[in-house]
């Protein structure tokens, strides 16, 4: 390397140094440090003491770890497909040639820019068992069958479904991406299908859906990652419904909303068990990586045929 080349190299490195240093200090170092801490008895203020696989072994026998994982998978298992169906349906409707299309697009996108805490406060009132908007709508519908609407956030059976329902509120982002995907589907494919006599449903099933496969894959993977890390709305709503018990992370009512990240957060910042919490974080990382890999495998063949 000549002197000039070396100088150019250092100049280049100097220009990218903010990002290199930022990545090293604030991402790579914490990630690697937490991997080390996951093998330690560590409570932030004391020197980490190496304890081998003790934290991981304890995880296997920790009932709350499994409960929080079950709750999280239940939430993700329902909210991700439901969210995808709702977002795609809205995108299809908003892609149709109707009057006031831009207005409706804005209306359906708007909720996704509302901050999560503000949206949670709003939904606490919507889910109110006595004066809530949702039960006001449901009560007359259920009355003929002798049923009454649930108490949502204070009923362990309905607290998780309430959060799943609320997750649909933020489908605006996915909807916009589906909309962009729909507009990229080649018109000639629809024309060819129409000439062949395909009905609207068959055009959707055989043209739209396969062409949207990469977009669906992207949205599903992103919402899966996000659903497995559900935290803010769960902690805000469960704390509010419980009356603010001070710990905020007991998964009120009766641990029905104890999600993985809430348990992790409580372990780290309330119980000060950073080593154990680091082990939990790595297990979550492996779960997310595994599910993403699985989704990629499933969709690989479908995406290969998309133009």
């Amino acid at each position, binding site marked *: 390397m000549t002197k000039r080349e070396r100088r150019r190299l250092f100049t*280049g490195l100097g220009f990218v140094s903010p990002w290199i240093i930022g990545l090293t200090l604030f991402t790579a170092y914490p990630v690697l440090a937490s991997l080390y801490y996951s093998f330690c008895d560590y409570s932030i203020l*004391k020197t980490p003491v190496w304890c081998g696989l003790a934290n991981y072994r304890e995880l296997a026998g920790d009932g709350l770890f499994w409960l929080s994982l079950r709750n999280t998978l239940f939430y993700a298992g329902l909210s991700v497909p439901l969210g995808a169906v709702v977002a795609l349906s809205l995108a299809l409707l908003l892609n149709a040639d109707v009057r006031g299309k831009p207005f409706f697009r804005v209306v359906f996108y708007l909720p996704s820019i509302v901050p999560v805490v503000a949206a949670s406060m709003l939904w606490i009132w919507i889910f109110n068992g006595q004066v809530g908007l949702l039960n006001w709508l449901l009560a007359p519908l259920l009355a003929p069958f002798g049923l009454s609407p649930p108490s949502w956030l204070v009923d362990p059976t309905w607290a998780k479904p309430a959060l799943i329902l609320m997750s649909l509120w933020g489908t605006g982002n996915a909807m916009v991406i589906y909309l962009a995907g729909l507009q990229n589907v080649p018109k000639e494919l629809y024309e060819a299908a129409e000439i062949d006599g395909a009905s609207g449903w068959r055009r959707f099933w055989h043209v739209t859906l396969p062409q949207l496969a990469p977009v669906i894959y992207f949205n599903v993977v992103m919402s899966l990652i996000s659903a497995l890390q559900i935290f803010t709305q769960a902690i805000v709503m469960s704390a509010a419904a419980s009356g603010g018990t001070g710990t905020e992370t007991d998964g009120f*009512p009766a641990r029905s909303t104890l999600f993985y990240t809430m348990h992790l957060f409580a372990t780290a910042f309330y119980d000060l068990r950073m080593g154990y919490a680091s082990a939990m974080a790595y297990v979550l990382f492996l779960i997310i990586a595994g599910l993403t890999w699985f989704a990629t495998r499933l969709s690989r063949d479908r995406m290969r045929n998309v133009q």
Partner: protein
Amino acid sequence: MARSSQIVPASRVPRPKISPRPPGSSWRIAAWLLGAAMAPGCGGCSRGAHPDDGKIHVVYWEKWSGPEARSLRMVVDAFNRSQNRIVVDCLTVSPIDRKTLVSTAGGDPPDIAGLWAYNIASFADADALTPLDGFMREDGTTPEEWQSRYYPVYRRMMRHAGHVYAAVSTPAMITLHWNKTLFREAGLDPDRPPRTVQELDEYARKLTKRDPKTGDIVQMGFLPQEPGWWPWVFCRWFGGQLFDGKHITLATDPRNIAAMKWVASYTKEYGRDAVTKFASGFAGQFASPQAGFFTGKVAMVFQGVWYNAYIREYKPGLDYGVAPAWPSAVPGIDDFAMAEADVLVIPRGAKHARAAWEFINYISSSNPKAQTREELRGMEVLCYLQEKNSPLQVWSPFFANHHPHPHIDVFRRLSASPHAVYAPDIGIWTEYQRETLAAFAQVRLLLATPEQALGEAQRRLEESWERHRRSLERHGQIAPDESAAPAS
């Protein structure tokens, strides 16, 4: 179709004229960027940048906003005026416990942090706090002498593992509040609160109303989950212990099981779905006009000394009473009460620990002879402005006779009660609290029997306690057989 004349080879595109840069300028820009990237690492360096007034600036983080914060700031101002060496800079920080912890770990903690009393044991075990004993000895007194000014319940609250770690800043006592109007409507004596648990249940029955058409509950005399913050105290109220100093006794003490059976009896009597539906209308609305007690939906509730201010804010004019103690649950104990407090601590590594102690000492003091508002000092100024009971045993004439809380005498008497309890002094309390909350919800919703719910919690807590002790031993903080705390 693009015309061929539009396509021009890149090499022939005329480039805009750029004035030549001086040699080495891009290197300098790169070096500047590198310096900018390094700058955040020095963020802490500027923290001590105070006006050069020759005074010690004590950084005080407090969780409160609103009236409590205003009261604290007035006391801080009074301290700053009282001498000319130290200036306390008060800053509202939330969430105070986590930020204090992280800043202490980062070596840049505040000099004083306003935590909750239940943080003391876990923070002390995590080596996050400075014991105050040394400062007391430097001042020529012993921790016992210094603490003797406090009521015993607050004295115990400030200690952990043989050291004083904190001083009370915002004390509270909790007892039964009742709605006199609803008592009158139910044909009960509005000036006589229930004196025993049996009377509480009986009054609750008389005060409960249902909609004649739907059968839905529209008013309840008492709801164990309202406000639902301290389910563990029901166990103590029934005479049970949560921790005997060495072992978790949540499920092994039969009195705790009895307390949870009493909780479940409400759900059984009024119906799980009916109670859940009724309570869902005001769940979590304790600090709003929709709170069950303020709307007249719940006639009796356990609340603290702060409740008078809440009533004035959210339901002015409410005709209510404050019971002289919790209804008796154990024969012979008729002055049971619960204490709570916020506390001031000096995090480990605080830069101005001695000056911080001087402020803590000031706020813990009082003028026992004060005859006017202006003569009040330290703790009494704070408690007067916050409308709370003083944790100090001696009250000045002005504080006792002109206190803004109309029922302050009740809280004063309860502070002195030998049966006043507080959260157990145990390093795993946050976990313990979550376990009791979950067990309470399971029992209340009839998802598990008291034996099952408490048994499950006990099993997990025993493991946690064992692990916690192992960790303390591993870090050389206790000897293997050392007892950790008094029974509670």
